[in-house]
C-alpha cells in the first residue's frame, strides 16, 4: 500500500469503525466494501475510467463524521412501500458491484440508513415516488453516502424522482440500485441540484427484466465536481431510454459515464445526453454500449449534443461501442456547437434583444429533454430552474 493510499484509507478507516452497528449481513457488506476501497483507494486520472475527472480534491479532504445518514423525505405514494432490510437482502449490493467503482465500494462501506422501496408485482403507482436527499453543511465538510434500492415487481408501473440538493460544502456519494421485473414500466428521474460547492458522485445501476420499459433522466445542474455513472443491464426485449441534461457554468465540472449492457437479444436502447456549457466549465460524456454475443437484433442509438457558450469551456465526449454480435443496429453521434448565428439574427430581426435571444435559444436546446419528462410537477419546476440558470448565464 502506498503512503498516499494509506493516508486516504486511514482517515476513512477511523470513520468506518465509528459507525453504529448493524445486522451481520449488512456488516459483512460494509467490510467487503471497505476492504475493496482500502485496496484500490480513490481513482486518479491515470485510470482510463477517470481520465478527465480528477477527484483529488475529494481524496485530499478529511471529512467530519456524519451524525445521521441521508434520509429521503416525503411520503410514499399508494402502491409503493418502504421495505425491511431483510427484504432487501437478495438485491442489496448485488447489482452495483464494488469492483466496478471505488466510490461504490466506499458507499457500501458506509451502508447506514438504507432506503428500500418495493413496488409489488402488477401494482400501478400513479403518483411519482419522490426521494429527496438534502445536505445542509455547516462549518465542517461532511460526506454522505445515500443508498437506495428500489425493487419493482413484474408488470408494475411506477415513476421515481430522486433529488439531491443542499447548501454549503459537502460530499454526496450516492448509489441507487433499481431492479425491475419482467414487463414493468419504470420512469426514473435523477435531479442533481446540489450546492455549487458540493462534490457529487453517483452510481445508478438498473437491472431490467424481459420486455421491461425503462427510462432514466439524469439532470445535472448543481455541484462543483460531479460524476454520474448510469448503468443499465438489459434482458430480452427490454426497451431502455437513458437521457441526460447537464448545465454547467463557472468552474463546474460534470462527468457522465453510461454503460448500456445488451445481454440478450431483441432489446432496444435510446440514449440522448445534452449539455450546455458556459464560462470555464468542463463536461465529460462517455457512453459505452456493450452488445453481448447472444444479443442479436439489438437496436441501439446514442446521441450526445453539446452547446458551448464560451471559448473557455471544454467538453470531452466519447462513444465506446463493444459489439460481439453480428446482426445488430448500433448508431452513435456526438456534436459540439455554438448558438446558431442565423437563428440569433432571425430572433433579433423580430425585435428580440440579443440577451433574450441567447436565453431563448439556449433554453430551446434543452427543451427536447425537458419535454420528455412525464412527471408534470418536475417538468414545471425544471423549466423554471433552467430558465433562471440560463438567464444568469447571459448577465
Amino acid at each position: 500500500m502506498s503512503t498516499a493510499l494509506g493516508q486516504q484509507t486511514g482517515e476513512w478507516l477511523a470513520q468506518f469503525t465509528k459507525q453504529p452497528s448493524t445486522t451481520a449481513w449488512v456488516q459483512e457488506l460494509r467490510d467487503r466494501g471497505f476492504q475493496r476501497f482500502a485496496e484500490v483507494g480513490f481513482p486518479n486520472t491515470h485510470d482510463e475510467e477517470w481520465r478527465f475527472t480528477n477527484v483529488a480534491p475529494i481524496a485530499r479532504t478529511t471529512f467530519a463524521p456524519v451524525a445521521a445518514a441521508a434520509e429521503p423525505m416525503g411520503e410514499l405514494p399508494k402502491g409503493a412501500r418502504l421495505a425491511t432490510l431483510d427484504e432487501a437482502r437478495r438485491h442489496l449490493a448485488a447489482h452495483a458491484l464494488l469492483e466496478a467503482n471505488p466510490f461504490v465500494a466506499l458507499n457500501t462501506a458506509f451502508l447506514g440508513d438504507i432506503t428500500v422501496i418495493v413496488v409489488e408485482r402488477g401494482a400501478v403507482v400513479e403518483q411519482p415516488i419522490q426521494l429527496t436527499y438534502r445536505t445542509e453543511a455547516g462549518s465542517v465538510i461532511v460526506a454522505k453516502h445515500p443508498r437506495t434500492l428500489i425493487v419493482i415487481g413484474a408488470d408494475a408501473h411506477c415513476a421515481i424522482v430522486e433529488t439531491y440538493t443542499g447548501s454549503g460544502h459537502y460530499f454526496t456519494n450516492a448509489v441507487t440500485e433499481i431492479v425491475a421485473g419482467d414487463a414493468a414500466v419504470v420512469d426514473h428521474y435523477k435531479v442533481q441540484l446540489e450546492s455549487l460547492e458540493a462534490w457529487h458522485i453517483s452510481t445508478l445501476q438498473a437491472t431490467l427484466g424481459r420486455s421491461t420499459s425503462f427510462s432514466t433522466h439524469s439532470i445535472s445542474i448543481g455541484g462543483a465536481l460531479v460524476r454520474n455513472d448510469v448503468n443499465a443491464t438489459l434482458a430480452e426485449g427490454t426497451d431502455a431510454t437513458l437521457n441526460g441534461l447537464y448545465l454547467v457554468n463557472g468552474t463546474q465540472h460534470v462527468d457522465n459515464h453510461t454503460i448500456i449492457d445488451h445481454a440478450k437479444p431483441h432489446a432496444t436502447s435510446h440514449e440522448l445526453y445534452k449539455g450546455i456549457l458556459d464560462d470555464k466549465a468542463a463536461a465529460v460524456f462517455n457512453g459505452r454500449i456493450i452488445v453481448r454475443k447472444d444479443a442479436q437484433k439489438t437496436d441501439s442509438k446514442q446521441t450526445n449534443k453539446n452547446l458551448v457558450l464560451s471559448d473557455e469551456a471544454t467538453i470531452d465526449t466519447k462513444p465506446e461501442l463493444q459489439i460481439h454480435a453480428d446482426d445488430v443496429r448500433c448508431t452513435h453521434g456526438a456534436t459540439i456547437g455554438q448558438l446558431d448565428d442565423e437563428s440569433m439574427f432571425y430572433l433579433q430581426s423580430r425585435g428580440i434583444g440579443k440577451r433574450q435571444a441567447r436565453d431563448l435559444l439556449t433554453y430551446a436546446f434543452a427543451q427536447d429533454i425537458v419535454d420528455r419528462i412525464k412527471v408534470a410537477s418536475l417538468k414545471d419546476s425544471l423549466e423554471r430552474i433552467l430558465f433562471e440558470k440560463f438567464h444568469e448565464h447571459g448577465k
Partner: protein
Amino acid sequence: MALLEIKDLHATVGDREILKGISLTVNSGEVHAIMGPNGSGKSTLAGVLAGRELYTVTSGQVRYNGKDLLEMAPEDRAREGVFLAFQYPVEIPGVSNMYFLKAALNQIRRHQDLPELDALDFLNMVREKMKLMDMDQALLNRPVNTGFSGGEKKRNEIFQMAVLEPRLAILDETDSGLDIDALKLVAHGVNSLRNAERSMIVVTHYQRLLNYIVPDYVHVLSDGQIVKSGGKELALQLEESGYAGLGIADEEEAVGKT
C-alpha cells in the same frame, strides 16, 4: 416624406464588394420593387437594411425615419419598425411560434411605450391575422418554422409582418418556391397590409409576383448598382425582353421565358 434614404451604399462580404453604390429613396406608403438577376446584390441590400452581420458597409449612408439606420442593432431596427421577410425563414426547434411572436411583439410595444399584450388579447389578435393568411392555428403551438412546408414558412413570414405591423417591410424573394395558389395568398396578405403609412421593398427575381403586388416603382439591380428605375411598366418590359433586353447577363433563364 422620405421614410428611407439610401445614399451611395457600398457593402462587402469578406473581400468581395457586392453593393457598389446604391441610392434609393422610399417615401411613406410606397411600394418599391427591386429586381435583378442572381448575384446582382438584391438579397445583400435586404440583409444590410435589416442588420445582418455577414455584410460590412464600407461607405454610404442609410437614414430611416430621420435616424441613422446603420448605427442600430438588428433588434433596434425591428423595434423602430423595420421588418425583413426572410428568403429562407429559419427553423428554431424548441421555441414555439406563439412564444416567439408574443416576445417579439411585446418588445416592440414596450419600445413604443405601449402596454404589453396579455396572453388572451394576444391570442385574439393573432387569430384574426391567421385568418388573413389562411393559416392553421395549430401552427402557433409548433416550434418556429420547424417542419413547416416551404409555403407555410413564407406565409408565416407575412403573418408575422401582419402581427408586428412594421413601418418598412422588406420582402426578400418571398415568391421563391411558391406555387401560384400560395403566391396569390401571400400577395393577398401583403396587399391587405398596404397603407399610406407603410412602405415596402419587394425584392424579386421574377416579374410574376408583381402581377399581384403592384409596385409604385421598379428598380433593376445589376452588379451591385441600380441600372434602371421606372414605374410598374418596367417590370412588364422585363417580362417581355428579359434582363438581356436591358443588356444584363442573367445566370439563369431570363424572366419572361418562364
